[in-house]
């Protein structure tokens, strides 16, 4: 046994260094997760069969709708984030005055979190808030727009909360691309659009995939803002909310666990799809150099 372990590069020191962290991760993440799977397969009262909790969730139209509600929020926000962040990051890779303050500005809402943004949005975007006041004064609209307590409100709050993450990742990738590659393209007669679409964008794509995956992970888990600025009884009744309601309003831990496991499975499939797409893209040096 110990011979095999030493052949695998495992010794006492390694176990001492790695052991405590692994024990904690197993106890606080793996074990609860497996426990959740176990609970989800144990039929609740009045149910039969080991998949009955899943059937209760997926068989109910209203419950099942929470999956589409979540995807219908997570996917548009992720796409919007990427579409806005790519051109800005592309431009900021070249020197621009105030680069550091600009990136600092984007970090602030990231750590403030969705709860605070949601609370502020209720006043700012409310019917008597500044946003509607400006629109009314300018004569853009005749009556206040309904921007909170609905689907739009959740989109806005998640965009504000997640855009910084997407932007900073893309900025990191864009600034790692050797400008000489574009210079070479220009010398060979490529126009501005061609240089962007044929040289820089393909090199940025791995970063785009990572940023999109992280944005999707965060928006797919949306919970507080779906309640606070959304319409939690209707269009923004997301999976996380459905799981929470099953657990703490109906005390149906079997179905709650089934919802949670379904949620994790859908999310991991989507992330795997994004990252699989990434592995098919160009991967290699983004610096010039001699080669």
């Amino acid at each position: 046994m110990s011979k095999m372990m030493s052949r695998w590069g495992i010794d006492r020191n390694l176990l001492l260094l790695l052991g405590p962290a692994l024990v904690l991760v197993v106890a606080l993440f793996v074990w609860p997760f497996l426990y959740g799977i176990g609970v989800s397969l144990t039929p609740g009262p009045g149910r039969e069969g080991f998949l009955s909790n899943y059937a209760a969730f997926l068989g109910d139209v209203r419950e099942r709708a929470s999956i589409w509600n979540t995807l219908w929020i997570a996917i548009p926000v992720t796409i919007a984030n990427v579409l806005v962040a790519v051109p800005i990051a592309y431009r900021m890779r070249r020197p621009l005055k105030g680069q550091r303050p600009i990136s600092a500005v984007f970090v602030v809402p990231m750590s403030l979190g969705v709860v605070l943004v949601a609370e502020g949005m209720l006043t700012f975007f409310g019917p008597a808030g500044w946003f509607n006041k400006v629109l009314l004064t300018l004569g853009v609209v005749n009556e206040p727009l309904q921007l909170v307590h609905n689907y739009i409100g959740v989109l806005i709050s998640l965009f504000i909360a997640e855009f910084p993450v997407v932007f900073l990742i893309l900025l990191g990738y864009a600034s790692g691309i050797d400008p000489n590659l574009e210079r070479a393209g220009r010398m060979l007669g490529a126009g501005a659009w061609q240089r962007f679409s044929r040289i820089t964008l393909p090199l940025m794509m791995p970063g785009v995939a990572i940023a999109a995956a992280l944005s999707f992970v965060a928006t797919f888990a949306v919970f507080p803002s779906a309640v606070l600025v959304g319409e939690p009884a209707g269009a923004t009744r997301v999976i996380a909310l459905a799981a929470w309601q099953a657990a703490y309003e109906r005390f149906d831990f079997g179905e709650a666990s089934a919802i949670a496991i379904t949620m994790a499975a859908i999310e991991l499939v989507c992330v795997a799809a994004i990252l699989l797409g990434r592995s098919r893209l160009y991967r290699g040096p983004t610096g010039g150099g001699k080669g």
Partner: protein
Amino acid sequence: MGEKRRGITADLSGWLVYAAVTLFVLMVGSIFLTVLLNSFASSWFGGWLPDEYTGKWYAFAVNEFSLWRVLLVTLIVALSVTAISLVVGVPAAYALARRRFRGKSLVLGLLILPLLVPPITYGIPLATMLYEYQMAGTVAGVILANLAPALPFVVLIMTPFIEQIDPNLERAARMMGAPTLKVFTRVLLPLAVPGLLAAGLLVLVRTVAMFELTFLTAGAGSQTLVVALYYAAFSAGIRPGQSIDAMAVIYMATTLVLLIAALRFVNPTNMVMRVR
């Protein structure tokens, strides 16, 4: 001519970036400004600005939301999570940075998973388990739950950082007869201080902002600021809106202080997870 036109388009794209940034700042800034103004407003009905100003909502928030206790709990939870995840996570990061062993990718996968799957998916069963061990609703339970994503986060941030430290320095110290513990405390730790500061501050900020796990595991006496704020906003109508905004301003001030401290040590592009 061609040269000149290129100069102008470069300027134009630069201005577009400034415009986008201004728009973003304007929107986020006014969101925060309305919260700030409202928290000082004795009443604000439909006008551009509040009718009169007062500081009474802060006193109200302190009493009504037992603010001092909430702040104390937030501090205890955030500092404990940071300390434990650094003490446990840094040795693990060292092992991952320096050693080759079978099952290393399995360990890495195990560490990435808690950061990928939504916290609510393991938070609900974790809360049930804590309940069985009579730890649900306690500060210790909240700390344990928050460690689940914080510890992997520290390991994943510190691993590339330790990889950058030249292993020859350790070998030299060893050759001169320093025992392992001394190599660790006298050579490695001093070199790792910038990384430790960065990882520690990031975990601190993330723990203060972590909603789901605290929400699921906290009881009445172990709420952190973000959860107390959620409950206040959720039950809006019971209490005056200004007192909720006062609470939000206090939350904002707390995180901003942490954030400004973090920005002194961390480049913003490193604030997000580094995945390669």
